[in-house]
């Protein structure tokens, strides 16, 4: 799985992107545990950071697979 970190998530993770091996599909909670285990500074961002899977915001119950591109989307501020 390719994981992309943007804005405050990038700062907290200390990297812009990384690759993770995901042997079997994960739900959102399990994925967050994996990510905050790797980067504890992400934990405070979880409450207001959305996940995108392959370029789209995920919906409740969606699963994440090894082939996915997952992005951490803190509150946006474009425009």
């Amino acid at each position, binding site marked *: 799985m390719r994981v992309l970190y*943007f*804005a405050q998530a990038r700062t907290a993770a200390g990297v812009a992107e990384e690759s993770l091996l995901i042997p079997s599909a994960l739900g959102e909670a399990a994925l967050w545990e994996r990510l905050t285990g790797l980067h504890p500074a992400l934990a405070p961002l979880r409450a207001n950071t959305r996940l*995108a899977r392959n*370029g789209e915001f995920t919906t409740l119950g969606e699963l994440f697979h090894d082939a996915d591109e997952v*992005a951490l*989307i803190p509150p*946006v*501020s*474009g*425009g």
Partner: protein
Amino acid sequence: MLISIELTESVIPAGTVVPPPEVGSVVEFRGVVRASENGSPISALRYEAYAPMAVSSMRRILETLAAEHPCHSVHVVHRHGVVPVGETAIAVTVCSAHRGEGFALLSTFMDRLKQDVPIWKVEALA
């Protein structure tokens, strides 16, 4: 509805849209970098984008809005990287037969963009 969406690191030129014969209204919004951010003077803002999703989400928002506010065309240019004070960070130009649908589409698009399009002001440069 014609939709064009561009992310660029270059200066966004002023109004270059040439309206076709059926267009009676051209409405444009430009978001400009202000000289202060949270009360402190700045010289520039740095923008970051998740480019593919930013483009696809803008397109989807516009396609959805077009059903309610049919317009002839929408051109969006959003800058990323460092944008100095006074320069345009985003320009959205909407061509439509009449102004009502143009205003409605443009202002609703900007509201949606500010909620859902993955672009960030990541740094204020002093």
